[in-house]
């Protein structure tokens, strides 16, 4: 019995190794695509939201007081203050609207003196007003607004200064009061992405292999050639699912490596935040073993699930049409574990896909329990076994195989 399973498994493995296009599409391409897409996303984010490092913000100022002007002129602010008159404001606003310049700040005349004389308790008129005109559709304008508003707000607070917050001290000589380690920040970022990406990569790897191998075999008629032999349907189904899972796992591994390499590119500035943190700061070797076991069980589950759908289909095209909408359901389950909380009961670890998302999230957050991990792996294997039995039964159905 074991020989037949091994023979079919070997056939699947050799078949994919011999089909270079399929091998490339299922095993190598996902990792490359992940790296390319994630890096491109990061670059686009930077292009859309970021400002050229050499850009000098052009800030037109009417009645710029010396106090604020000095603060804005500091090194590193990269602000060029262009003095303006009230008569110019309409033209400058038009220039800002047309995205030709960055910012217009209008202070009341003699701002420092007026502010110093103003007493909110006795005043009968409104407090002096500062107008800051910007264009949020222009990145440099929005950034210039943030810088100028920051300085004005600081000046505003200094007028009523009663206490300070987070001044550098012996405990925090660099003024950094955030106790998150680089690894914590990496874990937070991974916690949002990793479970979903991990599950989706495995699924898409399976999706590129199974319809071609199962429905394709049916379409080409080679399944009938297999079924006329003395080998049992169960052995054939198991051999096929094991062989395909091997490649699905390789594909998932490639995607995972691609994701890891693209992390820095994905979030601009992430390397500054994370410093020298690496994945080994978050996961222990035991954690990685658990993740690997989850990946194996999940690959088997997905391959078995897709095999059922592909066996039911008459052609590769039909199989792809049936399995594609499934991606949405997989995505919901894959995201679920990272979004919900309080789902640490064993029962939730019996639900395929969602359980894997929960388990990986728990590993990232150091909240995983061995029992839940084992239930997750066991449940995936159990469902994979049930689905394999269904595939075997379908192989025995003349209506499904020969219709």
């Amino acid at each position: 019995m074991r020989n037949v399973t091994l023979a079919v498994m070997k056939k699947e493995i050799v078949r994919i190794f011999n089909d270079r296009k399929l091998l490339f599409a299922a095993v190598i391409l996902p990792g490359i695509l992940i790296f390319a897409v994630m890096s491109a996303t990061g670059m686009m984010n930077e292009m859309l939201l970021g400002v050229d490092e050499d850009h000098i913000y052009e800030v037109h100022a009417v009645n710029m007081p010396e106090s604020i002007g000095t603060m804005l002129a500091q090194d590193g602010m990269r602000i060029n203050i262009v003095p303006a008159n009230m008569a110019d404001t309409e033209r400058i606003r038009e220039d800002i609207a047309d995205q030709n310049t960055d910012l217009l700040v209008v202070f009341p005349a003699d701002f420092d003196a007026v502010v110093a004389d103003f007493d909110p308790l006795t005043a009968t008129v409104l407090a002096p007003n500062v107008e800051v005109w910007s264009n949020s559709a222009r990145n440099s304008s929005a950034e210039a607004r943030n810088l100028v508003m920051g300085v004005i707000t600081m000046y505003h607070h200094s007028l009523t200064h009663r206490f300070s917050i987070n001044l550098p001290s012996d405990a925090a000589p660099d003024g950094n009061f955030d106790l998150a380690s680089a690894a914590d920040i990496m874990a937070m970022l991974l916690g949002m992405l990793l479970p979903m990406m991990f599950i989706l990569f495995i699924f898409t790897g399976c999706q590129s292999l199974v319809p071609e191998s199962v429905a394709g075999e049916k379409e080409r008629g080679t399944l009938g050639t297999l079924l006329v032999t003395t080998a049992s349907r169960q052995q054939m189904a198991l051999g096929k699912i094991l062989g395909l899972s091997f490649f699905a796992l390789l594909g998932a591994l490639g995607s995972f490596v691609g994701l890891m390499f693209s992390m820095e590119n994905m979030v601009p500035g992430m390397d500054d935040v994370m410093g020298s943190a690496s994945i080994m700061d978050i996961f222990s070797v035991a954690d990685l073993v658990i993740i690997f076991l989850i990946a194996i069980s999940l690959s088997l589950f997905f391959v078995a699930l897709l095999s059922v759908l592909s066996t039911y289909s008459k052609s590769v095209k039909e199989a792809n049409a049936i399995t594609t909408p499934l991606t949405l359901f997989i995505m919901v389950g894959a995201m679920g574990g990272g979004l919900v909380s309080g789902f640490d009961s064993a029962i939730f670890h019996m639900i395929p896909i969602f359980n894997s998302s929960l388990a990986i999230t728990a590993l990232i957050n150091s909240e995983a329990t061995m029992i839940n991990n084992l239930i997750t792996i066991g449940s995936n294997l159990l469902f994979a076994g049930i689905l394999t039995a269904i595939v075997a039964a379908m192989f025995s159905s003349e209506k499904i195989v020969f219709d």
Partner: protein
Amino acid sequence: MKEILDVRGLTKKFKLNKKQQASKSISTPYFKAVDDVSFKSYEGEVFGLLGPNGAGKTTTMRMIATLINASEGDAIVNGHSIVKKPLEVRRNIGFLTNELKLDEFFTPNFHFDFFADLRGIPKDVAASRKKALFDKFGLGPYADVKIGKLSQGNKQKASLAISIVHDPAIVIFDEPTNGLDVVTAKVVMDFLVDLKERGKSVILSTHIFGLLENLCDRVGIIINGKMVACDTVPNLAGEKSLEQMFFDIYRETTKEAV
């Protein structure tokens, strides 16, 4: 001659939904693709099945090969019932259609070894059979070339060799020469003669009257799922050609002008 195959009242009913019933103008909720077909075949004999498309030839062959279940009746293959001992039947049957059904990414060598593994044939036995068959078909130089890169003739030779990897007592060929060029068709015909000479029982389904006249010891004619005639070619055709006899029977049975 030893009886290898005894087909006893094989019947196959396919369920129909209401739409299919209406389109086929059938009052019953099923369609009889094969209706009470019986025949025998013996070792060293080629038995031909003749009939128009959809007559039930392929369904009959698939039932004998245990690829599909019989609704009624039975067939005894080398002493084993297709209903009670399907695995034993598969051990005794080789089945081949005109379409090659071999994965193009594998070599003849790999395919042969794979099917030998599936059938549980010891490695040394499989190796000697492979050598004998590959030598016979001249496949040696192509043994490690992928099926997809072989000529049509060599592909067919490879599939013929692989279909008898387990040295079956009976070999079923469903339209084995359909769509083949004359050179490849000759390879198949020579193979059938060789099987016959080696004492195998061959069941052959084809539309080619010449093939039936030249190769078959006996011919069964199936029309609308029923075996309407079964005998040797001379007894069936008499003074007529097999083709003329077939169309006479077809007209008589279906009342259709041909």
